[in-house]
């Protein structure tokens, strides 16, 4: 069955955070439900739809920005009390809007995530988890990395309280009281957790997670160990997951999975006989989907998916058809409603315009006086700067509540800006005078009208580090711009991981000296991405990393006065050595750096690169042949005369070309890394081999693994 959903916009509130919109439970099945939504202005608004008009049930006064909104109530009764987290305070409202709870937690940071189950309240700030029961502090846990979301397995179905934390370091932490029972590694930084089917599935232990790189998965959390059930990768390179819900929108009796992503995609997965998810429907909205829920809002009897977006739109994707097949009279009525809505909006606009004009004049006048000041209106930017594992590049997404006029990208390190199909902005690269002004990249993106979201792709080179700045100017008066800075770290292509292969030949770099734990931690933060800024608890800490491009690894273990870095890639060690000694000199700390180079590791790294290089070379060769083969095919009328190899290329032509397009400059990057490896190998020996690089490139052009290894050995 085809799923056909029509879009209907209900209302716009202020900028919303993740998981801040819910539907209040309905009185009966398929009756219209009320929507509660909280925004960055601190307003909680509850409304229902009546004849296409949004009717407000209640609306609170503005206050601190609302980070989360959840529904709660006594267990096994309709969950219709509204709880919001704003700053470090939890407020509770009845469904009529009466405030019955104002609970000032003792957290110093503002609350980032919240989950409510009966009288249990689970909260987390950036690193701290707290469990309250009837507003009394019960348990506490300090996480090693940022907590993105929190959930508790259903207490009414399980004999225990099992809170689960989704942490930025790609780990779900399952707690018992104040202690971690076990950790589960997931394929990306988890951003959202949800109970499967809303109740934990058959076992009551099924937990769904979504990651910031767009993957989804289902895990059963048993008392002793996790059982991975399924995972959905992110083949189409869509955005990160911000919200999930379960609702039977298809109408087959099985709850479907609704997913909202930060690139505006709304997806519906239904489950097949083997309980595996299958994509049934997707629709792109223009901005991040912050919350999603299935229910019924617009009209009795028609199920819909209700979403809220970053700039505060509450939108329904409804099963109700736009064009009804009823009599002509009714059609007219609907049009009438629309007309009313439009005319009321228009008059409101006129009124506003007048007011704005007056204010504008006042503002202009104030610029005459010498004492007056002119403040810049602040606007919020929702930005994300993440490393993609698949093609070892960074993607930067910028989202503003109003349309963006232009974005200036400036970088003081050499980086490549790649084209992204999704964005329609006109890019223009400006020449830059790098020596005097530290500019290696200056580019402007002039956005088309109504663009609120811009996505960029950036390719960095390991060992070259600095800052990338984005100056965002939205289309709003008075014109202003905001700067955002992003660090390009020395080992920018590394990613945190939790297991590494200890059998590889490793090179070791050891630091000793008079430095504190916090200092050495700050150096690691400086060099590597995905490390929490706060020094972790304990005296000694170990982090594992993986190079997303070459799959080499890095192990860093450090404590007060000592740091040990092990990697099978000599270039990684070389970069670390350079950066660390530079940093230490800057802070006038005396460092003893010693290293131990394992000759075998070079050969090992070359062997790791070999299959990638060979694949790329073959691909390039095949793609080169495609056009010529096609011409032959046209001439001869068929392909029977070709050898099977060429026939195969012709058959796969589209696929090959796509693959080739996906990885621009991949081969050049590999060459660059092999060259670095070559130079670094001999740098540690104290010889400069830069003169031999042309020779190396020659060998690479007629690539043969053994010849390359021999060259490395011989030089």
């Amino acid at each position: 069955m085809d799923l056909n959903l029509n879009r209907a916009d209900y209302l716009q509130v202020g900028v919303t955070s993740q998981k801040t919109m819910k539907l209040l439970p309905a009185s009966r099945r398929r009756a219209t439900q009320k929507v509660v939504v909280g925004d960055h202005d601190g307003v909680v608004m509850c409304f229902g739809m009546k004849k296409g008009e949004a009717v407000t049930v209640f609306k609170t006064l503005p206050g601190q920005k609302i980070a989360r909104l959840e529904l709660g109530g006594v267990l096994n009764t309709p969950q219709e009390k509204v709880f919001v987290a704003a700053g470090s305070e939890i407020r509770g409202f009845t469904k009529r809007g009466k405030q019955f709870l104002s609970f000032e937690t003792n957290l110093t940071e503002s609350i980032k995530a919240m989950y409510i189950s009966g009288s249990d309240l689970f909260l987390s700030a950036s690193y701290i988890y707290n469990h309250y029961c009837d507003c009394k502090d019960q348990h506490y846990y300090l996480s090693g990395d940022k907590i993105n979301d929190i959930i508790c397995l259903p207490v009414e179905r399980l004999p225990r309280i099992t809170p689960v934390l989704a942490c930025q370091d790609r780990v779900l932490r399952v707690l018992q009281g104040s202690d971690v029972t076990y950790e589960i590694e997931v394929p990306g930084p988890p951003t959202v957790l949800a109970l499967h089917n809303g109740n934990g599935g058959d076992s009551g232990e099924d937990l769904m997670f979504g990651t910031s790189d767009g993957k989804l998965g289902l895990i059963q959390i048993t008392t002793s160990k996790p059982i991975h059930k399924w995972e959905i990768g992110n083949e189409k390179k869509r955005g990160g997951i911000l919200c999930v819900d379960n609702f039977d929108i298809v109408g087959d009796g099985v709850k479907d999975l609704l997913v909202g992503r930060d690139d505006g995609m709304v997806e519906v997965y239904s489950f097949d006989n083997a309980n595996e998810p299958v994509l049934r429907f997707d629709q792109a909205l223009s901005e991040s989907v912050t919350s999603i829920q299935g229910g019924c809002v617009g009209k009795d009897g028609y199920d819909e998916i209700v979403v809220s977006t970053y700039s505060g739109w509450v939108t329904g994707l409804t099963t109700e058809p736009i064009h009804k097949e009823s009599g002509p009279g009714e059609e007219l009525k609907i049009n009438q409603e629309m007309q009313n809505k439009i005319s009321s909006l228009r008059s409101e606009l006129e009124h506003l315009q007048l007011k704005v004009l007056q204010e504008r004049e006042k503002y202009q006048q104030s610029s005459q006086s010498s004492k007056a000041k002119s403040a810049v209106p602040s606007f919020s930017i929702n930005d994300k700067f993440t490393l993609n594992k698949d093609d070892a590049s960074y993607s930067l997404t910028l989202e503003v509540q109003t349309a963006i006029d232009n974005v200036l990208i400036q970088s003081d390190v050499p980086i490549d800006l790649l084209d992204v199909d999704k964005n329609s902005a006109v890019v223009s690269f400006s020449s830059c005078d790098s020596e005097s002004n530290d500019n290696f990249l200056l580019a402007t993106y002039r956005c088309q009208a109504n663009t609120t979201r811009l996505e960029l792709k950036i390719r960095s080179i390991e060992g070259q580090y600095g800052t990338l700045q984005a100056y965002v100017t939205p289309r709003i008066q008075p014109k202003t711009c905001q700067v955002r800075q992003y660090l390009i770290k020395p080992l920018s292509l590394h990613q945190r991981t939790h297991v590494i292969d200890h059998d590889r030949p490793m090179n070791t770099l050891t630091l000793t000296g008079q430095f504190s734990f916090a200092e050495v931690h700050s150096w690691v933060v400086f060099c590597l991405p995905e490390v929490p800024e706060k020094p972790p608890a304990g005296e000694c800490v170990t982090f594992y990393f993986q190079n997303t491009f070459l799959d080499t690894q890095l192990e860093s273990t450090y404590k007060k006065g000592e740091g040990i870095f092990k990697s099978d890639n000599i270039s990684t060690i070389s970069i670390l050595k350079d950066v660390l000694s530079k940093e230490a000199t800057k802070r006038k700390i005396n460092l003893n750096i010693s290293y131990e180079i394992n000759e075998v590791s070079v050969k090992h790294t070359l062997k790791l690169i070999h299959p990638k290089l060979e694949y790329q070379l073959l691909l390039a060769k095949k793609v080169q042949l495609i056009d010529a083969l096609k011409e032959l095919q046209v001439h001869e009328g068929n392909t029977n005369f070709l050898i099977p190899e060429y026939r195969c290329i012709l058959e796969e032509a589209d696929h090959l070309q796509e693959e080739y397009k996906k990885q621009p400059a991949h081969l050049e990057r590999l060459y660059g890394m092999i060259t670095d490896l070559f130079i670094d190998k001999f740098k540690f020996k104290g010889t400069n081999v830069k003169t031999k690089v042309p020779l190396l490139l020659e060998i690479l052009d007629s690539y043969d693994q053994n010849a390359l290894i021999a060259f490395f050995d011989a030089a």
Partner: protein
Amino acid sequence: MLLPVFTLKLRHKISPRMVAVGRYDGTHPCLAAATQAGKVADGASAMVLGTLGDIPSPLAIIGGNCALQGFDHAGNDLFWTVTGDNVHSLALCDFDGDGKKESEDFDIRVFKEDEIVAEMTETEIITSLCPMYGSRFGYALSNGTVGVYDKTARYWRIKSKNHAMSIHAFDLNSDGVCELITGWSNGKVDARSDRTGEVIFKDNFSSAVAGVVEGDYRMDGHVQLICCSVDGEIRGYLPGTAEMRGNLLDTSIEQDLIRELSQKKQNLLLELRNYEENAKAESSSPLNEADGHRGIIPANTKLHTALSVNLGNETQAAHAELCISTSNDTIIRAVLIFAEGIFLGESHVVHPSIHNLSSSIRVPITPPKDVPVDLHLKTFVGYRCSTQFHVFELTRQLPRFSMYALTSPDSASKPLSYVNFTIAERAQRVVMWLNQNFLLPEDTNIQNAPFQVCFTSLRNGGQLYIKIKLSGEITVNTDDIDLAGDVIQSMASFFAIEDLQVEAEFPVYFEELRKVLVKVDEYHSVHQKLSADMADNSNLIRSLLVRAEDARLMRDMKTMKSRYMELYDLNKDLLNGYKIRCNNHTELLGNLKAVNQAIQRAGRLRVGKPKNQVITACRDAIRSNNINMLFRIMRVGTASS
């Protein structure tokens, strides 16, 4: 919602811009598409069929190498004129009943029969043109811009990061007016209203669009819009019916309208809030450090801009300079200049490092051509530690001759080449023209006529003298014939001169042209010789082949082998000969282009009627191969002495 009425897939690639509909057998329309790189005929790059002016029979008008020719059905050459550069696209439209064409040097030129009636300069190479409705026509540029002109006024234009591959006028929504259909390099097809540029319909292909044409492809009496992609996918669309009321997109208009209005409302509310917050900030304490961080600046901060000429030094070449400064201690974080045609991309950014921040910035500008350019400046103003900045937006015009610095008249040797003409204007008006078109230092004081000013080009150091006598006679001395043309055209438009006869003398340029003409003759003879050689060789090949086959039939393998070896060598010779011919041909084309350009340049030195007279007379001179006559025409503007 408009759906394709048919879709079909060719299994072959279609070359971009090589799609046409024709009736090959007279009745059945066929869609012709070049599936392999086509070989374009010598020198012709655009062709259009139609009737022109008072010539009764339909003409095939060929745009080629700087020239425009019209042939009738018998192949007679009825129409000829020159253009400034290679012709890229041609279109006929009712621009007061005339033909129109455009060329590579960013200009659109409108011809009425063989005289230019209008010229429009665009910022990039124009790739295609299409007539729309009445005097309107659409155009596409190679940088991704499409737009519509009505006569010489631009109605609208839009720019995209993709390239427009093909444009076509088609009435898709059945309202009686054609829409501009654009096929983009990313596979998008959109239809835009000719008046506003608003998108009324769009569709997506999986690969770049190769062409957009129209035709009755299904033979049912309805004309369809046919779009082809480079991968061979073809879709046809029927125009929407009247009931759809032009609503071709699937989302309902009301929904969109509401969304738009709400967005507007939200923007206004935000702006209101901005003013409120501003008022709040104002009422608080005087400016302090924290304010600077949030980007609060004194309200009376003003931005000054000044354009001047910088003669440069050892490290930096001479350039025009834009100086931007604030009126107080605020700093300029960055300057974005959006201007078309003078930078590599559409914008130029100046972003000083954090140590070099100051309240003024100097931006060097070196426009490559002598055209007036609007500079749209966006300046980020704040304090050193600010994370938010005020954006000051303003527009300055860069004068046409900004790359010429005023120097003292007697400093250098006067260029030998000159143009001489007389205008009926007071000297003050000429001074006004100078002020508007050159960057003169502020203290420049020009006395009454007669006077003389001297400029030095910042590009190549060439001299430009402009001398005006009491009688209104003006002499412009420069070795650059293009510059002389620019000066005359600029003056003509400033003083609204309709016809201007000019006496010109460019000894160096004319000498070069003479050489070129000699070379053209040489290449022509070489060409003929090569052709003869080739004919000889092909005869030889034929006989060799016969002899080789004979040897094979007689089983004389040795002879056969040697024959085939000879054949192989001959073939190689032929290939080499072909290469030489190719080179010869390119050279010839280059030289022919130079000749055409020379005629065009000579024309540009005159205005109005004399201009056309010069072009026609030059053409006649070339036809009769009278080189001396050609130079005399270029000098004095007429053939008769």
